[in-house]
């Protein structure tokens, strides 16, 4: 995918089983135009090949954090934000 020069980007991190499934720990993703949210980034990721559409298929259990705080699909995004996707946590 050609990186749009100067396009506004967010840093996307993947953790645990999701990182392994996608074979990707970190990437820069251009923000969709308009009022971008976590949901709109997800749509972009789903549009990619099988691994991505599968990992984020409806019904899959995953969580999202924005700038290190738990977030959800409606959370708005701005350039430079850190978005993290990960499976439900299992600490403690």
């Amino acid at each position: 995918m050609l990186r749009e020069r100067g396009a506004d980007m967010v840093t996307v991190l993947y953790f645990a089983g999701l990182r392994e499934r996608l074979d990707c720990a970190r990437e820069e993703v251009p923000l969709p135009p308009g009022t971008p949210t976590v949901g709109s980034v997800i749509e972009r990721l789903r549009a990619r090949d099988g691994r991505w559409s599968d990992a984020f298929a409806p019904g899959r259990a995953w969580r999202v954090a924005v700038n290190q705080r738990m977030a959800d699909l409606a959370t708005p995004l701005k350039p430079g934000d850190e978005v993290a996707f990960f499976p439900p946590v299992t600490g403690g």
Partner: protein
Amino acid sequence: MAHVRVQQAPFDAGREIAALTQGRRDVGAVATFVGCVRDRNEGDAVSRMTLEHYPGMTEKALEEICAEAARRWDLLDTRVVHRVGPLEPGEAIVLVAVSSAHRGEAFAACEFIMDYLKTRAPFWKKEETPAGTRWVEARSSDDEAAARWQGGEGRP
């Protein structure tokens, strides 16, 4: 106010408890929880566990959970230590210690912090079993345990 550490090294529960009482005469109650690696999970033998975490967010998440506990109960001090990296069965994973004037608050807050930590702090467990390595699945029982506190009330 809360003392939070995320570390690979083991911790000493006795020292963490002493840190809450040393030189103080206002502490009436200390409730402590220690979680350990078991050699069995979901019916399979576990030979080793590896904890992954989200550096930076983990500490913030734990501090936020402790702050919420302090908002709900009259607490004196809170300490949370969570280990990451490879752990063997029998080793301690996490400690939550809470001090207060009376036992009711200390018990409730300690259990609250553990229940929220289990569903909101970004840690993930990977287990080595005879059938190979697997990521531990989140338990619905943990979601239910956390849901008990949802109403924002004090007692579960």
